[in-house]
C-alpha cells in the first residue's frame, strides 16, 4: 500500500476518466481536504456556522474545474484560491446587504481623511502606501489592507490573522489610523 499525493491522485483520475476508480479517487481527494477547507472558510469569514456551506460550494467549484489544475503548483494552494474567492464573494454580498466595512471604526477615520483630502487621488494612494510601509507594523498593515482593500469584516480579520487581543482587529485599525494621521501631517509639512 502506498500513499498517493494529491497531485498524483489527480493525474491518475485524468488518465482514466469516467471510471469507477476515478470517481473513488476524486471522492477520496475531497474527503482528504474537507476538514481543511471548512477551517479555511471559517478563518476567512469569521463565520463558523456558515463555513460548512461555503466549503460545499468550494468543492462543487473545484470538481467542475479540476481540469484547470496545473501540476506545477500544490493542489492545496489551488483549492485555497477557490476558497478565498468564494469567501470573498460571500463577504461582499453580506456587506452589501448590511453595512459598509468601515463603519465600525468610522469615528477614527475623519482626521486621517481630512489629512488625505488635500492630496489628489493619485498622490493619496501613493503616499498612503508609502507611509504604511514606513510607520505600520506588519499586523497593522495587514489588518488595514484586509479591511479597506479586501472588504473583510473586522471579526473575519481577527479570525483570519489569529489575533487574540481583546478587541481583535479593531485595535489595529485604530492604532494604524493614529500613526498614519501623524505620518501624513508630517509628510505634508516636509513636502
Amino acid at each position, binding site marked *: 500500500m502506498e500513499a498517493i499525493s494529491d497531485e498524483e491522485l489527480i493525474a491518475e483520475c*485524468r488518465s482514466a476518466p469516467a471510471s469507477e476508480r476515478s470517481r473513488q479517487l476524486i471522492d477520496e481527494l475531497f474527503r482528504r481536504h474537507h476538514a481543511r477547507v471548512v477551517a479555511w472558510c471559517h478563518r476567512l469569514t469569521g463565520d463558523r456556522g456558515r463555513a460548512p456551506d461555503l466549503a460545499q460550494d468550494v468543492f*462543487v467549484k473545484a470538481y467542475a474545474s479540476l481540469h484547470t489544475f496545473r501540476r506545477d503548483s500544490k493542489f492545496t494552494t489551488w483549492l485555497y484560491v477557490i476558497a478565498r474567492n468564494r469567501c470573498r464573494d460571500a463577504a461582499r454580498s453580506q456587506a452589501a446587504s448590511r453595512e459598509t466595512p468601515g463603519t465600525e471604526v468610522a469615528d477614527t477615520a475623519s482626521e486621517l481623511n481630512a489629512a488625505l483630502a488635500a492630496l489628489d487621488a493619485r498622490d493619496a494612494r501613493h503616499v498612503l502606501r508609502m507611509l504604511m510601509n514606513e510607520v505600520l507594523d506588519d499586523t497593522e498593515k495587514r489588518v488595514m489592507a484586509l479591511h479597506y482593500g*479586501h472588504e473583510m469584516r473586522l471579526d473575519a480579520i481577527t479570525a483570519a*490573522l489569529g489575533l487574540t487581543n481583546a478587541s481583535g482587529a479593531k485595535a489595529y485599525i485604530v492604532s494604524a489610523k493614529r500613526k498614519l494621521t501623524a505620518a501624513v501631517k508630517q509628510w505634508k509639512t516636509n513636502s
Partner: protein
Amino acid sequence: MEDEFLRAALRPDEECPSLDELGRYADGALDLEARSAVEAHIRGCPSCETELALLRAVTSTGVVAQPTRVARSRWFTFDRAPAAAAAAVLLVGVVAAGSYLLFVRRAPVLPGQATGGEVTRSLSITIRGPIGEQRDVPQRFEWLAAAGALRYRVRLMTVDRQELWSTFTPTPGVELPASVQSALGPGRTLLWDVSAYGEGDALIAESGTQTFRVVPR
C-alpha cells in the same frame, strides 16, 4: 464617504497579480521573470503583500495535512499518464461534478466507503490563535474542539523546539499562567502545538506547529 481614501489606496488594481498567480508564486511555480515581477510589485503593494501573507498563514497553519493512504493502482505511474487522456479531462470534470453533486454534497463527511484501497485517517485541529504577530502578550491558547477528544495536550516551545511549558486540558482552550506570559517577551518567536487524545488516551488529532511573536513597541 468616510474612509474612501483608504479604500481607494488599498483596493487591488489592474497592476496587481491575480490570486492564482500569487498562489503559484508562493509555490515557486513561476518562471524567473514572472517571479521577479511579482516580488517587485509586492514590495510596494500592501494589498498583495497581505493577500500573500494570508494565503501562507491560512494554508500552512490552519490544519495539519491529513495522512491518508490510498492504494496505488498496479498499472499507473506518473510517467505513463497518457497525453491522449488530456482531451478527456473536461469529461472527468463533468463526471466528477455530477458524482459530487449526487454522492458527496448530501454527506460532507462521507462514511468509510470502499475507495479501492485501504484508508487510514487522523483528524486535525483548527487553531484559533495566537498565530503570527501579536500586539499584546497572549493570555490564552485557543483552538476548535476535535470530535471525540477527551483531553488536549498543549506545548509551548522555543524555535529550536525546546519545551518551555506544557499542560493538559479537557477544554479547547487554556489560560497561560502568569509565569509563562512573562516569558513571552516582545520580539521573541515561539512555537506551540496541540494534540488531542480520545478513548484509551489514543492520539486522535494534532494541530501542527503554530508560530507567533509579540511585536516590539
